[in-house]
């Protein structure tokens, strides 16, 4: 079934290998969500019109405008404490319970219940669709979104069509009452709960934690609102966008009222009205789908954004004229139909494009501003206006005149927007404000394309490269004409980007213009050129690549090798034989460097019995770049015999990053070996320090367990690196589990160390000799380090963001910030943790804190001599050295004896200090 779907859909949608399961599940999810909404929507409309009155609709519009914001705010608050899949499933369960309650209330047949039902369904629509897209955004990254969201949107439209038809079928043919449609929704919603859980689990199993949502602070929405108003004032483009969107909402609400009023007058019976609405919404979705699939892209390519945003107002204007000429059901269907068919197809795409030249941050804030403020305000204003119209006793035709007046204003704004869009787009290109990676749709409307083509003629190569990047996804064949001259551009980057864009647009006739690039000095350009020729020539790709690989021209053969490594299929990679490798590997000197470099990359993809031999040869290459590529290839091929070599090379600064990535590429297979090296005290400390960072690149439960076990065993400096690795894993992979009991016990050990150091520090007061100052400074620094480690440990158990904020607050110099952080921790930590931690951060006095330490751990030091003794016997080498350095000052026989015992300490710094101190004492 999956294969069948892939074969019929794969051609139309760019869903890639490995993405199908998640994509189809997400498709099923949005499909079911829209089915439920389109079951509820006709029921909502018909029940309200029959049981209440169309004249009450304006009041409902106003109430919806008022209650949506609090509901969405409540939802966001709930969202801050829960993981996304849990939030969605909890919301769905709440919605199911809501439906059951509503169904029970409908039995009572009070008019207020229908108000409630209408409002509830409206909020339901906003909530379920927006949480689906929130979920989709966390499941897919920006590049996937660009390809897959179109397919998911199709799922939504099919859901809407089916929902409408199912409604008609159930009510008109099976005689189920409108009220009982609600039970069907419950069934469909229950399936979405299963789907969301399965999707989340698959994503976790793929090792890709869905991207976390950014937390918003409480004041952010107010701040965003004020900032948005300020930003709006300064931008004509933004003001025009908001004006257009406001007019759209206003007109849509009035048209909806007119439509429902006329429909109710024509079909007053409830069980005829429901199938009518079901049918109407179905055909509206079909029209919207047809409009989107058949016309939107064509219109956009021909008329650009400026034309696209005029379609809806002009369509509505024609609908309005029809209503004036022949008022009735037909005119109402045309008016509301043109709104529905165009608003979610060409008009929506056009409006999305209006946002393109807007900086990403402004765009995000603007969308929040529009959803929360503009949309609700103008829906409310529409309700108020309708109430006024009803009060003035205006007929439906007279209301149409009001609508037409608004549409006229809308058209004028859209015409001004047309000009402004081109100017803003041009400026955005010049300032490179649009992030191609963030674009969630392809740029192929006429106006944007024209601006991009104009940018290709710029004298600034950064502008050209930027425009080329934006054009990468465009499939407009005619575009190759302005691209081709860039193949001769003086900049390598421009030539390379032009080749990338041309790869999608070119054909065999362009080969003659690409061929000269085979002589280019840059191997990337030569490699891309060979790829173009191989893929667009009428000859067999593999034969052509073989021909180039065997070329007597070294530049061509090396580029062919690079091309096969980067773009070759498994069959083409077989062309890289031992003979090819040996020939290139055998050439020495700077002039043969690029060949060896390509061989080093090829080692990451080829199959050869002599792979280890080649790797060994290239690891001894004189070029650091060749060595780096060889290291990367070891990881790609997971050649185990080189693991010890890679670990040892972690202490080498130049190859460290490559070794780290290469080791991480082995995944869990290398964890045991890494752990053995980490805990082997005979090995170089510099090398061991880098191992936790490698392990942090292997997100697996075993990594957590091994690092946590090592944490207890290691000295403080290594413990810090282990903790950093654990923190990194915790932040990036929240699905991994940490043993809370073990962490608590480590936190308590760390607090004990803190209290000990604090007591020793207190005994140092009053001395200003250099050795005493050094010891005091070192003890204070140790306390800071202890505190940081305590918070790092707590970050493994509690939400890391919260703990990090609390840490910043605790170490802040501002009293109020510190007090807030302490208050926050007081609420967050469990009772046992609080007992140990709060005295450390509470600002009573160091004496109080030290006393707390004594009480908690029954650990008491009475003199400076005892303190030094404790440090000299302790595990921290630096504090030991500082303490020994202070011994001559104290003049204690006990300490001198202790120092004498350390003459053969394993640490050279300790031995050296002991010698110095004993000499001082003797003299």
């Amino acid at each position, binding site marked *: 079934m999956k294969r069948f779907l892939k074969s019929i859909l794969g051609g139309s949608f760019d869903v890639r290998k490995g993405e199908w399961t998640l994509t189809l599940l997400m498709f099923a999810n949005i499909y079911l969500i829209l089915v439920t909404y389109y079951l509820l929507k006709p029921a909502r409309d018909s029940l309200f019109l029959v049981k209440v009155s169309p004249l009450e609709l304006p009041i409902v519009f106003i109430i919806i405008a008022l209650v949506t914001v609090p509901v969405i705010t409540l939802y966001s608050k709930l969202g801050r404490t829960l993981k996304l899949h849990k939030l969605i499933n909890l919301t769905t369960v709440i919605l199911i319970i809501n439906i059951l309650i509503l169904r029970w209330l409908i039995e009572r047949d009070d008019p207020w219940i229908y108000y409630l039902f209408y409002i509830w369904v409206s909020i339901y629509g906003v909530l379920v669709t927006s949480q689906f897209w929130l979920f989709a955004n966390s499941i897919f990254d920006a590049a996937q979104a660009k390809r897959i969201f179109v397919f998911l949107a199709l799922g939504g439209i099919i859901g809407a069509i089916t929902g409408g038809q199912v409604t008609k079928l159930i009510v008109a043919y099976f005689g189920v009452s409108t009220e009982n449609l609600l039970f069907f929704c419950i069934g469909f919603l229950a399936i979405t709960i299963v789907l969301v859980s399965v999707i989340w689990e698959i994503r976790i199993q793929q090792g890709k934690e869905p991207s976390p949502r950014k937390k918003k602070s409480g004041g952010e929405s107010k701040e965003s609102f004020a900032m948005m108003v300020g930003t709006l004032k300064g931008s004509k483009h933004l003001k025009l966008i908001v004006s257009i969107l406001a007019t759209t909402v206003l007109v849509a609400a009035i048209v909806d009222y007119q439509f429902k009023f006329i429909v109710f007058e024509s079909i007053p019976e409830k069980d005829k009205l429901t199938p009518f609405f079901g049918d109407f919404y179905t055909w509206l979705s079909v029209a919207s789908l047809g409009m989107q699939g058949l016309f939107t892209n064509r219109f956009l390519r021909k008329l650009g954004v400026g034309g696209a945003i005029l379609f809806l107002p002009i369509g509505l204007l024609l609908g309005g004229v029809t209503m004036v000429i022949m008022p009735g059901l037909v005119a109402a269907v045309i008016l509301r139909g043109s709104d529905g068919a165009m608003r979610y197809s060409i008009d929506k795409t056009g409006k999305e494009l209006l946002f393109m030249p807007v900086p990403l941050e402004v765009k995000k804030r603007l969308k929040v501003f529009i959803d929360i403020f503009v949309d609700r305000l103008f829906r409310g204003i529409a309700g108020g206006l309708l109430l006024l119209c009803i009060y003035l006793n205006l007929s439906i035709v007279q209301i149409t005149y009001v609508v037409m007046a608004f549409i006229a204003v809308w058209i004028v704004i859209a015409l001004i927007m047309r000009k402004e869009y081109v100017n803003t787009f041009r400026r955005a290109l010049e300032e490179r404000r649009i992030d191609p990676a963030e674009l969630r749709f392809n740029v192929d409307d006429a106006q944007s394309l024209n601006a991009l083509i104009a940018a290709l003629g710029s004298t600034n190569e950064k502008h050209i490269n930027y425009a080329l990047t934006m054009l990468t996804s465009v499939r407009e064949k005619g575009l190759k004409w302005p691209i081709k001259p860039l193949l001769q551009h003086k900049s390598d980057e421009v030539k390379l980007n032009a080749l990338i864009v041309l790869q999608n647009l070119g054909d065999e006739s362009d080969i003659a213009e690409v061929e000269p690039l085979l002589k280019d000095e840059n191997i990337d350009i030569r490699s891309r050129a060979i790829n173009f020729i191989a893929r667009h020539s009428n000859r067999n790709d593999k034969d052509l690549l073989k021909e180039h690989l065997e070329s007597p021209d070294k530049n061509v053969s090396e580029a062919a090798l690079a091309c096969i490594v980067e773009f070759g299929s498994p069959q083409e990679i077989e062309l890289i034989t031992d003979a090819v490798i040996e020939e290139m590997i055998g050439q020495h000197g700077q002039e043969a460097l690029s060949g060896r470099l390509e061989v080093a990359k090829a080692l990451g993809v080829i199959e050869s019995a002599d792979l280890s031999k080649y790797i060994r040869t290239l690891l001894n290459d004189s070029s650091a770049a060749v060595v780096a590529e060889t290291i990367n290839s070891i990881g790609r091929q997971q050649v185990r015999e080189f693991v010890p070599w890679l670990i040892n090379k972690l202490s080498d*600064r130049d190859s460290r990053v490559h070794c780290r990535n290469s080791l991480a590429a082995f995944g869990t297979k290398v964890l045991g070996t890494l752990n053995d090296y980490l805990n082997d005290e005979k090995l170089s400390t510099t090398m061991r320090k880098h191992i936790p960072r490698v392990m942090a690149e292997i997100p697996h439960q075993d990594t957590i367990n091994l690092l946590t076990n090592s944490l207890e065993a290691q000295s403080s400096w290594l413990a810090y690196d282990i903790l950093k690795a654990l923190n990194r894993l915790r932040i990036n992979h929240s699905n991994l589990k940490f043993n809370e009991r073990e962490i608590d016990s480590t936190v308590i050990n760390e607090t004990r160390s803190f209290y000990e150091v604090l007591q020793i520090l207190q005994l140092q007061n009053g001395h200003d000799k*250099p*050795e005493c100052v050094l010891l005091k400074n070192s003890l204070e*620094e140790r306390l800071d*380090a202890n505190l940081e480690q305590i918070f790092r440990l707590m970050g493994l158990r509690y939400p890391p963001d919260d703990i990090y904020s609390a840490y910043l607050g605790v170490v802040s110099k501002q009293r109020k910030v510190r007090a807030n952080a302490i208050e926050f921790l007081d609420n967050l930590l469990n009772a046992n943790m609080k007992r140990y931690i709060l005295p450390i951060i509470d600002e009573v006095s160091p004496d109080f804190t030290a006393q707390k330490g004594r009480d908690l751990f029954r650990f008491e030091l009475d003199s400076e001599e005892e303190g030094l003794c404790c440090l000299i016997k302790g595990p921290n080498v630096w504090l030991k050295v*500082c303490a020994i350095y202070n011994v001559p000052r104290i003049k204690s026989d006990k300490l001198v004896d202790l120092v004498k015992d350390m003459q053969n300490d394993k640490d050279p710094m300790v031995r*050296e200090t002991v010698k110095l101190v004993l000499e001082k004492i003797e003299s």
Partner: protein
Amino acid sequence: MLTVVEKVVLLQNVDVFSEVPAEQLTYLASIAEEIDCLAGDVIFRENDPADALYLVLDGKVGLKRDGKEIKQAGSQNAFGTWALFDDETRVVTATVKENARLLKIDREEFVDLLADNVQVTQGVLKMLVKRVRGIMDKLGTPPTDSAS
């Protein structure tokens, strides 16, 4: 010969290392080399390439610009500090006035150390940022977090 701990005691007082934790100064101590100079020795001249920082252990060093002495470095004073951070040539000539013992930190070794030891780097950056903030405060420009 000074031990590591003695060098750390001295390095603590060098302004640019004041924010580096004492434990981390042991790494700096390990690259700090003791040199003896005789009165009249020229350590470096104006416009020479800057290659090291010096700290006077004992003795005196005169710093001259355009032949005029602008400063005298005595025990525990450092000079040539900025040589560790940029490629500008020396702006003064340093001449030993009284037989002196100096601690020298070579620039290349210092850069290697920074690359390997993030806590030393953080300490040095903290101090430099403190200085920038101090200058901005003096100029009346409030420091912001933005790149501008």
